[in-house]
Structures are given as C-alpha cells and as structure tokens.
C-alpha cells in the first residue's frame, strides 16, 4: 500500500556563496503526513520552494508518482498536483476569496460560465473539508486562520494531491492550530499527502507519521515518528544536545519597579488599541504578556517604551510617574532612568541593518563615555567593547565590522539584547525575543533573560509564542482586543486555558 508519491534525488541549490541545499534525498509516501524539521536557515523552505517550482535546483531530479518531472515554474508543479501554503500568504489582500483562488486558473478570458462552475466546485470542497469560507469576503477582512484556509482551498481547487505547508502554525492561536490539524487530518483521510515544514517539535510528534530532519542545508535523518522523541529530534536539528526545559530557580519577587494604571493608547489611524490596562511588575519577576498578534501588544509596548503617545492613564517607574497624557518621557530619558527596550520588530526598530555590527552595538549609548568624547566617536574603544560583548553574548561570527544584515536572525537579536542588557537596566521591556531565532540561540536568550530576573530586574515579556511565555514567566497576563482579559500565576495554568483567553472566548 505504501508507495512513494514524491522522490527527490541529490538536490543541490546555492544562492551566491550560500549552499542552501546539499545533496538532498527525500522520499515522501502517498497518503502520509510527512514532517520536515530543522532550525531557521536549515534549508527547509528552500527545498520546498524547489519542489513547488519557485526556485530551480542547480542539480538533482524530482519524481512525482515515479515519473521524472522538470519544474521550471510553479505552473509545472501545480499541473503535477503539488500545492504549497507559504509562510507569508500569497494572497492579494484587496481581492475576494474567489478572485484569489481563480487567479491564473480563470478558464476563460471574460468571466462568465466558468466562474459559476468554480463557485460550485469551491462550495463542494469547502463542505468536504469543513473549511467554512465565504467566497465573497475580501481577504483583508479575514483573520489569519481563515486566510490560511483560503490558501489550502486554493491549492485543493488547483488539483493538489501533495500539499506543502511552510511553518503553518506560527501565526495561529492554539485553537486555530487545532482546527488546522483537524483539516489536515481530514485531507489525509481523503488520500492527500501532506508535507509539514516546521521547527516546532510538538507539531511533529502530534501530527506526522514520518519525519525528516535538516541541518545546515543537509538532510541528517529520516525516521518514523513513532520511533523517535522530542529530545532526539532536537539533538539532530541542532547537532548537540539541547535543554528543552529551562532551569528556573524560585526567586522571591521584590518591590514594584514598573506599573501602569488605566492606560489607553491609540494607533496611527486613531483607533484605540490599548484599553484601560493595569500592570504591575516587581523586581525579580518576569511578567509574560500573551496574546494573538494585533491585539494591542505592539501599541502597549511602544507606549511603555516612550515611542507612542499615551492617550490616558499613567506609567510609573520605581514609584515615580514618568508618563501620562500630558507629558511623557522619551526613550532616551527612560533609558537614563534604567528602562531598556528590546523592540518586537528588530529589523525595523531595533537595528539599522545596513550598518556595521559595532555601530548597532552602541546605538543609544553612543554619546556616552567611553564611546564618544565631545561628540567625536572613539573608534578604538568601540571596537574593543564590541569584541568583548560579542564574545560574552556568543554573537557569531564575532566580527564587529560585519554589516548587520549579514548576521542570522538569532545573532541580530543577540546584538540587540547585548546592547540593552549590558547596561544592567532595572526594567526590561522585551517583545518577541525569539521570533525567527533558531533553537540554539533561543536557549541562550532565554537563559540571559532568566539571569536578568535573578539579578532583580523587572521584565515584561511580550510574545506570541505561548511556549515561550509559559516557560519564562512567573506571572502571565493575556491581552485580547486591547484589554487584559486574564491574569494567572504560572504554576498550574495550561496552554488550553490561555488559548481560550487569547481567543476572547472566556
């Protein structure tokens, strides 16, 4: 009964000097859910983009159902029954669901009879897989979970037998993930083959029957999922043993260092995004803020760090009022008072990616001794400081003169963290500290945050990764639609409970 539907042999792909895929061999059996796991930058997405015809391999062969095929563009893949749901959705936001799905497969020059047939076919597909999508809604009105379903429906409509999903759960709530997995299982029951690309071990264990592991562009192992476990997979991914659970000592929380009273914040479009929020963070405590992206966390973090105006309410640092609607301290003044901020979007707000590492390592502190004297930068001291700090924070490669964009995501994040943590702030606001960061670096970053807490800092951790919030925080608050909808001690709270709060159900 087991027959291979997709066979890759000796696939090679380079981008300039980067050898993204080295002699990859992979066999995927029909009717299975096959996981491909690896760290960011391991080459998973590149490999699947080759299978989808988006990139062309430098060498190697691809067989579908035993027949060798030549993939020059996604069109060839679609014809051969391969569909892909990309990490960043390939949807036109101001088009309707229907328009997005028929794009490229309109069937006729002028819309008419075929459009009606397409509608009927799509309704049937929606019913079969319980997708529950309104074909006439505009993509921009849909939630992320529904957009993903549109992508799945799109692939099915185009006749996909093999469906590749690239990191599909990164943007979903736990409930949405459950829904997605239900859909994927029903697809499998109908005989479709699913390829799941992910870096989350739990998804592999939950959903797949076979798993392949990639590391640094190479395929390092294949196994049946039932014959392996998370620790073993993590070790294969990283190439050394990894601590999956953090060692966190009990620390007695001290006095309140940072507090927010009745805070309301509006966004650039004058929409109220943070509604009457109260927060208190104590010394030696990590307060985790969980929530689905776009529920006001970004605006809250910006207001707390002095980037965004406060509409009403007050912010206190060490018991002293620093900001209200009348006057507020800017990021520089807050920094001087011992507040550090690691922004959510590191490439937009945390770094100047075109600058060299040493420049980014001193930003915000560049006008202080010893980095500058009477407004002139002291190059030698900056470089020696950068070298020291890059070693301390394990930034790789350790070259202060390298352009920042050439560092991997994890190392860019380490650059920001080292800059902010080096000043020993009393209060640390940190947003999405490990977004797009590989497992090895996550472990390191988490350990540093715990160290900060143990030394008595008050930390606000904003993250959409529930696992991260659960493993780091002492207390957890959940934000939904701009409000704090729940607060839990992180002793006996489950991700179920948090998921329901995040979805605004409770």
């Amino acid at each position: 009964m087991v027959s291979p539907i997709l066979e890759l042999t000796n696939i090679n792909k380079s981008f300039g000097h980067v050898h993204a895929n080295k002699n990859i061999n992979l066999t995927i059996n029909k009717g299975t859910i096959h996981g491909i796991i690896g760290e960011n930058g391991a080459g998973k997405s590149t490999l699947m983009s080759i299978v989808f015809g988006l990139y062309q391999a430098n060498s190697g062969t691809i067989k579908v159902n035993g027949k060798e095929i030549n993939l020059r563009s996604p069109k060839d893949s679609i014809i051969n029954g391969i569909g892909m749901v990309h990490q960043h959705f390939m949807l036109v936001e101001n088009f309707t669901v229907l328009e997005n799905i028929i794009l490229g497969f309109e069937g006729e020059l002028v819309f008419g009879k075929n459009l009606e047939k397409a509608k009927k076919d799509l309704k049937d597909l929606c019913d079969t897989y319980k997708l529950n999508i309104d074909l006439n809604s505009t993509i921009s009105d849909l939630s992320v979970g529904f957009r993903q379903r549109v992508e799945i429906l799109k692939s099915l409509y185009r006749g996909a037998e093999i469906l590749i999903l690239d990191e599909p759960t990164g943007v979903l709530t736990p409930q949405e993930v459950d829904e997605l997995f239900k859909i994927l299982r029903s697809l499998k029951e109908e005989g479709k083959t699913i390829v799941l690309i992910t870096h989350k071990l739990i998804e592999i264990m939950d959903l797949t029957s076979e798993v392949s592991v990639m590391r640094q562009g190479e395929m390092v192992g294949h196994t049946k999922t039932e014959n392996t476990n998370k620790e073993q997979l993590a070790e294969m991914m990283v190439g050394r043993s990894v601590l999956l659970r953090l060692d966190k000592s009990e620390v007695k929380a001290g006095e309140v260092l940072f507090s927010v009273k009745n805070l309301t914040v509006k966004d650039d479009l004058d929409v109220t995004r943070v509604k009457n929020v109260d927060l208190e963070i104590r010394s030696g405590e990590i307060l985790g803020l969980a929530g689905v992206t776009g529920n006001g966390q970004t605006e809250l973090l910006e207001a707390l760090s002095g980037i965004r105006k406060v509409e009403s309410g007050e912010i206190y640092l060490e018991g002293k009022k620093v900001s209200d609607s009348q006057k507020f301290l800017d990021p520089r003044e807050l920094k001087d008072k011992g507040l550090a901020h690691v922004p959510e979007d590191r490439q937009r707000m945390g770094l100047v990616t075109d600058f060299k590492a040493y420049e980014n390592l001193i930003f915000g502190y560049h006008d202080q001794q010893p980095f500058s004297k009477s407004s002139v930068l002291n190059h030698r001291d900056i470089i020696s400081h950068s070298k020291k700090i890059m070693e301390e924070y394990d930034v790789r490669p350790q070259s202060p003169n390298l352009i920042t964009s050439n560092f991997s995501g994890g190392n860019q994040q380490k650059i920001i963290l080292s800059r902010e943590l080096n000043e020993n702030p009393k209060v640390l606001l940190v947003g999405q500290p490990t977004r797009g960061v590989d497992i090895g670096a996550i472990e390191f970053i988490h350990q540093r945050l715990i160290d900060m807490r143990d030394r008595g800092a008050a930390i606000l951790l904003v993250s959409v990764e529930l696992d991260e919030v659960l493993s780091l925080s002492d207390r957890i608050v959940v934000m939904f639609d701009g409000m704090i909808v729940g607060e839990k001690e992180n002793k006996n709270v489950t991700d179920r409970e948090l998921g329901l709060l995040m979805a605004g159900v409770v």
Partner: protein
Amino acid sequence: MEFLYDIASLINSTLRISTPLVFAAMAGIFAERSGVIDFSLEGKMLMAAFVAAVGSYFLGNPWLGLLLAIIACVSLSMLHGFASVTYKGDQVVSCVAINILIIGLTTALAAAWFGQAGLTPTLNEDQRFLEVNLPFAESLRDVPIIGTIYSDILSGHYIFVYLAYLSVPLVFWIVFKTSFGLRLRAVGENPSAVDTAGINVFVMRYKALAINGVLIAFAGAHLSTAVNANFFREMSAGRGYLALAAMIFGKWHPKTALVACLLFGFTDALQIRLQGVELPAIGEIPVQLIQAIPYVLTVVLLAGFVGKAIAPNAIGQPYIKER
C-alpha cells in the same frame, strides 16, 4: 442664447483639451496597476507627437504616422521595462532618463532633418487628421438643446477625441471584467501571489507596458497631427505629468481618472475662455493668474485628496524571485 453658446463651447473645448490626458491616464493605469511606475508618460507623449508628425510628413498618411508613433512608444515602454522590470532598476530614474532623452532627441532630430531646432514642417490636409462631422450635424443644429448638444458639443471633433472617451469603458472592462485584468491587478498588488499561481510576473508587466505604449501614442498623435499641424519643441507641455496626477487623483481607476482628466481639461478651457475677459468690479484679470488655475487646482487636489488614494501595493518595487 449667447450664454448657452458660451457653455457649449466651453464643454466642447473641455472634451478636446482633456483628450491627451485621458489617453495618458489610461496608459498610466495599465503600467501602474501592474506595479510599474510610469513617470515617462510625458516623454512618450512627446516622442509620439514627433514621430507621428514626421512619419505623416514623409509617408503622406496620418494613420501611418500614428502607427510609427505606436511602435516608438511601445519601444520606449519596453526600454523602461528592460531597465526596471528585467534589470530591477529604479523605476523613477528610468522614467526621468526617458523624459530627458526624448526632449533632447526630438529637438536634435528636428534640427538635423528640417534645419529648424525642434520644429517639423507644417502638414497639409492629407497628412493630418481632420475634424469629424457626425451625420446630420448640420440639419440638427437649429433644434433647441438637442441641436446644441449634438452639433456644437459632440460633433466636429478629431477622431482621437471619440477614441479617448471610448477607451475609458474599454479599459474599465479589461481591468475589472477579464482574466487579464485580474492578473494585471494582482501583479501590482502582490506579485508573489501571481508567481505562485504559475503566471510569469515579468511577462505580465511587459504586456501591461506594451498596452501602455499603444495608448500613450494616441495622445501624442492627437497633439501633432490633429489639433496642430506640426511638431514643436516640448509640445506635450507637462500633460503627461498632469495625466499622472489625474490618474492618482482618480485612484488608479478608469472612471474616476476620467473625471479628474475632465476637471483638469475644464480648468484649462476656462482659463483660455477667461483671458481678456473684463469682470465686473475687478476688471481684467492678469493672464498669468488665469494660466495658473490648472496648476493651482492640481496642487490643491493632490494635497487635499490624494492622502486617501491607496496605490497598488507593490508599485515601484521590482519583483525579486530569489533572495
């Protein structure tokens, strides 16, 4: 009666003056909906005017002049595509280069071929487009209202005027009712979505630019072989930029762009009409002030309304497939 006639002649000139703007705005819609900025409407219009006049002069037929103008403009569009689509150069820079090139090229070629800097010989009646009198225009002229509308406003225009206004529903239909239009709009919003649907992004953008070249050629030919009987230096006089403004003001939509073109055409017609007119209490308005009306209006409209116009999402960005 005098007043009614004034209004009729004002509308008549509005239709005529707006014609090149309408062609150019429609051309711009194709390019920009596909995600390619077209600042070079001005240069292409000028090129078309020159080629149409010269072609018609040598070949003795304005239609052949128009054909050559189309070929010239499509070539320029392809050049723009080559620089900014294939080689992913900056789209605005490519357009500015084309505009500057054409100003110099037309002036120099006119000087070389005809001995007059930037001027081509006057075309005779066989070599240019003549006004089209609609059937029964003369006999209906005396019928009240209908006669004025039909004979004084609608009849007696150059062929391009009719073509321009017919092109608007056609463009609307192509952009919003055909599969080509769907792909065109998609490629300007999210080229990755088009690529993953198995459609070649580059081919789509070249197709859009080709249509853009054809449409803008009509605008140029209208200037040099219809309303005028020769080409003169920089005769496009900023109409390409004005059309671009109208297109943005019209939110990249053929119908609203048409309204914007007509508005600009009307202010221009009005300023011509107002020149030398004595207004009660004020007296004669200085001509410079009147001539400034269209430009002032442009600035006011753009400053006041364009904030709400949302450009195609991927405009100005070359499509890069591999990282």
